[in-house]
């Protein structure tokens, strides 16, 4: 097992390094001049000579006159920067946000904290609903309940999340006034402790409902399909023939086996807590990773965009390893040693 983990980790490092170069090169191939974008708003208030000096200085500071390989090596921390220091990705420096004018590592924590909190709520709520619903739907296959769940889950699965968001806002925020339309806290409030927590929960309730509603369909159908397979197995028939109680048959025999294919999806969901929802976070004006990602692209804040994407690359690579390992842990038939 250890050998397998080390081998996979080595692959991950190589793939990650390759991807850093590819992605860095891609962003640098964009035919845009970041120095010009940075100083252009000053043109109207400056004389040509001073504008040119500031433009050239900005190009110099951004290292735009150096070849791409030099810039990449500096960005990674393989070679020293202009100040003679090794200060790149390898040293924990994820770059500099041209929009926020501060290091990327100082920009990401707050949105990341929010996105993780939001997604934990959504994941727990969604699992709490979909697993029992999927089980009941499978146990009562072709019943009215099953058909209703099937239809509702397909509908929920098919409607774009922005439509769900706008409809929910109209119903729950505008008509019923149960929740606020947007924001993460009551404007101007300075709550602390429990009051701050309840205020936060009140503000994220509607986005949580939207994200949960949109994720119900797929998981319910996964659980239902896995349960139907499990319930058709011989050992279930044997258990029933032995006179084991139906609840025990369903939850102890069938569900534990049905969980095997579902568990990897659940782990995937938990890994997904780092990934923000671009649409929902933007619709509700939430300062999360999804909105930050799209903003970094819109603002042409490429070092920030690159850092966010590389973070997700790392999460995906290690997440895949985790999923593979979890297979071996939950299913004794799978042996991970190669």
């Amino acid at each position, binding site marked *: 097992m250890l050998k397998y983990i080390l081998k996979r980790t080595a692959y991950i490092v190589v793939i990650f390094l390759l991807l850093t170069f590819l992605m860095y090169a891609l962003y640098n191939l*964009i*035919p*845009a*001049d970041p120095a*010009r*974008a940075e*100083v252009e*708003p*000053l*043109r*109207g*208030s*400056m*004389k*040509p*000579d*001073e*504008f*040119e000096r*500031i*433009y050239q*200085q900005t190009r110099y*500071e951004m290292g735009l006159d150096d070849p791409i390989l030099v810039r990449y090596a500096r960005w990674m921390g393989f070679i020293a920067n202009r100040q003679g220091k090794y200060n790149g990705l390898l040293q924990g420096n994820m770059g500099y946000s041209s*929009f*926020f*004018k*501060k290091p990327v590592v100082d920009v990401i924590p*707050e949105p990341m*904290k*929010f996105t993780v909190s939001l997604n934990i709520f959504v994941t727990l709520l969604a699992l709490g609903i979909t697993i029992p619903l999927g089980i009941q739907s499978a146990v009562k296959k072709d019943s009215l309940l099953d058909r209703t769940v099937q239809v509702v889950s397909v509908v929920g699965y098919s409607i774009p999340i*922005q439509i769900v968001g*706008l409809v929910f*806002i*109209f119903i729950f*925020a*505008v008509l019923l*006034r149960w929740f*606020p*339309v*947007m*924001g*993460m*806290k009551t*404007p*101007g409030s*300075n709550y602390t402790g429990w009051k701050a927590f309840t205020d936060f929960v009140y503000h994220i309730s509607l986005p949580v409902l939207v994200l949960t509603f949109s994720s119900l369909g797929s998981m319910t159908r996964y659980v239902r399909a896995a349960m139907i397979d499990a319930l058709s197995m011989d050992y279930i028939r044997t258990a029933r023939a032995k006179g084991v109680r139906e609840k025990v048959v369903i939850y102890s025999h069938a569900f534990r086996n049905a969980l095997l294919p579902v568990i990897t999806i659940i782990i995937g969901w938990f890994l997904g807590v780092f990934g923000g929802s671009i649409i929902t976070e*933007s*619709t*509700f*004006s939430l*300062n999360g990773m999804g909105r930050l990602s799209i*903003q970094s692209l819109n603002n*042409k804040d490429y070092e920030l965009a690159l850092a966010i994407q590389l973070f997700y690359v790392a999460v995906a690579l290690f997440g895949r390893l985790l999923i593979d390992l979890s297979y071996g842990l939950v299913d004794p038939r799978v042996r991970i040693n190669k």
Partner: protein
Amino acid sequence: MKKLVALLMAGLMLLNVVGVMAEPAVGGEIIYASGTEISGDWAHGAIWTNNATDNMIRSLINDYGTISYNQGGAMVQNASVTESVESVVNEDGTKTFTIKIHEDLVFNDGSPISAKHFIASSLLFSHPTLLGMGSKSSAYVYYVGGEAYKNNGLVMPELAKAPEGETEEQKAAREEANKKIEEDFKAAVTASVAEGNAKWSGLRLLDEYTFQVTIVAKYIPYYYDISYASFGPMSIDMWLGEGYDVKDDGEGAYIVGDMTAETLAPKIEHARFVTEGRITAGPYNLVSYDVGAKQAVLEINPNYKGNFEGQKPHVQKIIIVKAEKATQFDALETGSIELISGLTGGEEVNKALDLVAKGGFATVDFERNGYGKIQFACDFGPTQFKNVRHALAHLLDRPEFATTFTGGYGALVHGPYGLAMWMYKDSEEELNEKLNTYPYDPAKAVELLEEAGFVLDAEGNDYVEGLRYKKVTAEEAGKYEHNVTLADGTVLMPAIIEWSATPDNPVSELLVTMLQKNPDLVAAGLEIRQSVMDFSQLLNWLYRDSSQGDQYGVPKYGMFNLASNFYPIYDRSFSFTSDPEKVAAGWNTNFLFDEQLDKLTMDMVYGVESDNPEGYRKLWVDYIDRWNELLPDLPLYSNVYYTIFADKLKGYEESSLWGFDSAIVYAWVEE
């Protein structure tokens, strides 16, 4: 008599009571919906970031400038701050402003403000250490001794100049050598800072409440020279801390204290982003900024003396939140936000007016100080010919375009001006007489094309139908990709105009319908070919920036759809320069080389003294007239903006020259 006196006294008392009642109470709050993200960088004078909401917050917390902009966008002496602003032109052509400030000014923490706080900002942000840290300050350019100050008193060695007939190899070697000299010099300046700070001879502290600044001769005369006397106070304690001060021993002002990058960097980082206890001097204090929720809260600064008119704010609290376009009206209706500024276009404005009709909301509207436009490249292809530009103008029904695009909430201009500008207001009649409005007239367009020589077909025969061609000289032909060379060597230029447009742009979409696919345009013998591209690419083509790829260096697109906004300082100098270096640096993106137009843009600001607004206005009218004749851009629309707010807010009057940060100081809340 006694009765009469008593009656008069009673009347006066009543008037007094009424007066007291008329003064709005201080209190209430307003939630401002911001369209752009707050970055949390509160650095003085937008040294690092430049986004709109950051700027607005900076203006709300910093307002003790010696010079202010009034409601009409004109610069006025801030009487709340200055006792006097006097100027004198010196024998050497420099100009000196002597500014005496009031002695009762204090920062929001109650600490006194003196003259040194007004020049501290220039001294700090033009210091070589700060310039090396990314400061975009350019104050050192304008004030005598600034260059020396920027280099901490060292003299930059002369760089090698290009000799005649220099080869590419020699050029590369020379540039490399110059680069080395510059880098060595930069290192020497950095090292010298450890030994002490230079003095700035053009910035002087005369006494505790008087300071003097001297402008370098080459920037005098300048119509807006009063802007050079514009200084705001900066807390030395907050930015630099203990052990730092600003002094003047008679040779110029300087900073006392360790200004090396190692010492300064953490101080500056802290001062840029600190919220709690931020020392400023404006109508509001920044009370809190929630980085997670992106909310800023501002409250009235009790130590604020008033703006240039002595006006103090009455709205106790301003909360600034980020809103999204898709849900902003729902948020407004349900009270999550209370004011959205700068709505435009039929859809948004109609939604706002619907809310007003429902009750609980009010609006103000104002004209944009700028316009959407088609920008022409005037040095190659068909758009190099004035008549072609005129013909295009006659082939677009611009009033209809403006009405359709703005949903009826817009206006049309015929030159580079905004309807709110004082120059326009004072010259409206004159401009109405002089300016060509280019009405929709396909027949006139054909006449203009024929007059320009577009009278041939692709074989060089007389034009009958289809695309028009013109016989051009080698100079006119340039490298235009669509030129046709006949067997006899004659070069024909077709009336094909390449158009660079950005994706998902409603202006482009409407231009396709109303111009590109206009049957009258096709019948006139013109063709417009649209290329949709990312905005960065559009800029590369516009600037002909070959550093981004060789292809951009070759002119290709004759028209671009863009927009222009004007600053209160209407300075168009160098916009039509012929200097190749400035043109290459993006100072004449129309590539229109007209001596008269260039001269007017320069004379308008550098040929008129600041006390001669009439002289400025006359040159401005001449400039607009000449511009209208040459038509480097085709103005398409000038929006009418709406600001909607909860009707508890009273006395709120906004304009394109008088934004939220200024207007809110005059408003109050009635719950």
